[in-house]
């Protein structure tokens, strides 16, 4: 009996696979002199997860905006289910069955889940009044499979980021879309939450929906996608079955040349015999982290891993007084015990923090590179009478950004015009302006494309080699394993143990992160 159904299933799914949902042929789009799309092709079939890869600026977003009707192509054809279409805007895209889950969550935080899910639907309906019961029922239906635990009457702001992402997906599905675009859906999720999303993606695929999946994370693409299309400089480079290619091949296609090793060499000296730069004892705020102990050594990159909500960011912010602590002792390399009243004190003792949200609080987007770099210590570039020495400011910015090989059109260029990777370099240059001994980096490569990521990793290693102690928080396990000398794993605010370079595996980190003690680890 089981054999029969399976046969029937596979034959029907095979039939489904042959239908092309979306076919984009030779699309061109220019903005002024910049050719954003220069002969882009893309084909999406029913019931597949199709990854779209390319560096920032390769044309992925422009292509998606063409599909969503935000941009009109200069030339080229779009076919939806074999019909040639011109898509004039989001509403028309919705009518054609295209659902778009944007990278940034675009929900109304104070409004209920039900109303959010039905937003587009309410907009399209011609009725004068809203039937709230019907709204709730529709929302419940849409969430039934994705996340039945979410109460549709809740305000969206009470949900976690991952739940909000699911609400976004439900919002797209409620319009009966069969083409679903997911733009970096896992960027804000922890690995565990991502796994839940992948299960759902597969369910949707089995329902016959075609999913366009955009991600910088190669591991995810190779584990969960069926085909992968690579764009470079707005042109179509390759479309392959994931099974027939490798991450190296894809990255090569994306950047157009070899990248060398993905991660720099690790520290060769015995870490724990190096001088201790910072020792943390019994640090806690009695809410998000408890009794944290560790020491950071000269030349070390110490990773901090854990699930979202494990208290990682809160803990490191506690160290440098960006968050209050209730208890804890910090000791510096000279044996001096310190307690910081404000982040300013921490900066003065050479401990700086690079925030996880670059655009939100890492850089001043509207200000120039020079002004960004000097923000941490304006006093350093002043003359005797307290005014800013513009020459000194420019020189400082030039020196530090050169050190980080930042490419820019000059130090007075606003940071908003730089790419994500270069913005991050500006943020790091700002940290370096006070010649810190300890740099804490919270998700230093989030939202940065592959090439720039490799560069940031090298840069972090160079800093360590110069004698700085670096603490790196990352939700990307391959990065934690590839980059760090030791990794501290947190679970619900507690330090579960520190893994050494030779002990680092994804499995071990995940086990510790989910609450298993180090002593109980499977070998």
């Amino acid at each position: 009996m089981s054999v029969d159904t399976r046969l029937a299933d596979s034959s029907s799914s095979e039939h489904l696979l042959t239908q092309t949902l979306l076919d984009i042929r030779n699309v061109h789009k220019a903005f002024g002199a910049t050719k954003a799309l220069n002969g882009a092709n893309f084909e999406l079939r029913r019931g597949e997860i199709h990854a779209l890869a390319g560096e920032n600026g390769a044309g992925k977003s422009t292509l998606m905006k063409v599909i969503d009707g935000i941009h009109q192509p200069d030339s080229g054809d779009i076919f939806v289910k074999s019909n040639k279409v011109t898509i004039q805007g989001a509403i028309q895209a919705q009518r054609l069955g295209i659902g778009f889950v944007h990278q940034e969550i675009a929900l109304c935080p104070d409004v209920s889940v039900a109303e959010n899910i039905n937003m587009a639907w309410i907009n399209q309906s011609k009725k004068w009044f809203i039937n709230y019961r019907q709204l709730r029922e529709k929302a419940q239906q849409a969430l039934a499979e994705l996340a039945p635990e979410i109460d549709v009457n809740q305000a969206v702001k009470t949900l976690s980021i991952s739940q909000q992402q699911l609400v976004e997906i439900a919002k797209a599905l409620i319009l009966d879309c069969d083409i679903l675009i997911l733009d970096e859906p896992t960027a804000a999720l922890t690995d565990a939450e991502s796994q839940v999303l992948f299960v759902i993606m597969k369910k949707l695929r089995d329902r016959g929906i075609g999913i366009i999946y955009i991600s910088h994370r190669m591991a995810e693409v190779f584990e969960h996608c069926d085909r992968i299309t690579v764009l470079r400089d707005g042109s179509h480079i390759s479309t392959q079955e994931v099974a027939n290619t490798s991450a190296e091949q894809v990255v090569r296609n994306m950047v157009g040349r070899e990248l060398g090793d993905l991660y720099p060499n690790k520290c060769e000296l015995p870490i724990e015999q190096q001088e201790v730069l910072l020792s943390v004892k019994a640090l806690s705020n009695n809410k998000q982290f408890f009794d944290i102990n560790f020491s950071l050594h000269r030349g070390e990159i110490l990773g901090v891993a854990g699930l979202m909500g494990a208290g990682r960011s809160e803990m490191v912010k506690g160290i440098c007084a960006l968050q209050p602590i209730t208890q804890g002792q910090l000791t510096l390399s000279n044996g001096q015990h310190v307690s910081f009243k404000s982040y300013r004190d921490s900066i003065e003792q050479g401990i700086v923090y690079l925030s996880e949200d670059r655009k939100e609080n890492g850089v001043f987007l509207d200000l120039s590179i020079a002004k960004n770099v000097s923000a941490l210590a304006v006093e350093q570039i002043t003359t005797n009478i307290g005014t800013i020495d513009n020459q000194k400011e420019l020189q400082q910015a030039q020196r530090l950004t050169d050190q980080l090989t930042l490419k820019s059109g000059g130090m007075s260029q606003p940071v908003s015009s730089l790419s994500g990777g270069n913005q991050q370099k500006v943020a790091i240059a700002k940290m370096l302006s006070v010649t810190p001994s300890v740099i804490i980096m919270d998700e230093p490569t989030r939202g940065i494309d592959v090439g720039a990521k490799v560069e940031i990793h090298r840069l972090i290693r160079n800093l360590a080699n110069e004698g700085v102690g670096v603490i790196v928080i990352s939700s990307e396990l391959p990065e934690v394993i590839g980059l760090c000398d030791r990794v501290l794993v947190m679970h619900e605010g507690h330090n579960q143990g520190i893994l050494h370079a030779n002990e680092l595996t994804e499995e071990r980190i995940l086990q510790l992160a989910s609450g298993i003690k180090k002593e109980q680890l499977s070998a």
Partner: protein
Amino acid sequence: MANSDTNTAPLNVQPTAASGSIFKRFIKMREANLIVIILALFIVMSFASPYFLTWANMKAMMLSFSTEGIVVVGMTVLIIVGGIDLSVGAVMCLAMVIAGKLFLMGMNPWLASLISIGCSGLLGLAMGLCVTKIRLHTFIVSLAMMGIARGLAMTITQGTPLSLFTLPPEFKFIGQGTVMGVPFVIVIFFIIVIISDYLLRHHAALRKVYYTGSNEAAAQYSGINIDKIKVGAIILCTTFAGLAGIIYMSKFGAATPNFGVGLELNIIAAAVIGGASLKGGEGSVLGAILGIALLSVVSSSLILLDVSPYWQDLIKGLILLVAVSIDQILHDKQK
């Protein structure tokens, strides 16, 4: 495992119209546009009216905006930090009334003025604490303060103007005297503007005003005490309003409890026309002063052209709308 340094990773550098020649940079500056517009108005008006380009008219125009201009300086700093102050008109009036009342009670006028400017600063401190400790928006706090200050002025005077003709001549000199034919008020105004424009562009502490206004969170993550900056900016704004009140008192030889009603709107408009962004992080003293100069030149022109005074507010409203629209459109184009 060789660390291949020969492969430098790719970088996305987006070309921008960087610095360029000095002339190009001048054209891009908001101040430059305003200067051009004001000059154009001057040329047109000098043909349209024989009285426009006379020393008397120039003096009248400058007099009309120099005292308000002092308040504009403080307001600009506050707007750059991302705040706004609706109470400046009322605080200015209260400063005038307090100083006048103390003088009538027999106090030395200089000391009375100093005390009343100090009181203005204290009102700013109170507002600043509401903004940073209770986390209220400056709009609401200053709206409340507008009522409180005006109410205090009314209570102190019981609604009737205080006549201060007994003020000593050296005190009256502030508002009425001239230095080599130039009204002293204009001299004070220029000194304050030049110093504050320079400091705002170059002083380290005032640079933090831009950081805080541009991105509060990023400023905090740069170790800047943003609460201190905000409170400081509000105090600066009300203190300058107090100073303006004293100058008016000396000029009129009276303290009127309903003086300066609606003044705040003119001042905010001037700062915004001058390029200050209500989102914070942008603006300059020079721009704001050119903004108020433009409004004043327009007013004067309309009077000389015999346009009904009823049209004046409408035209000023349109200028504000056009100025901010141009700004927004240019901003969107850059992106």
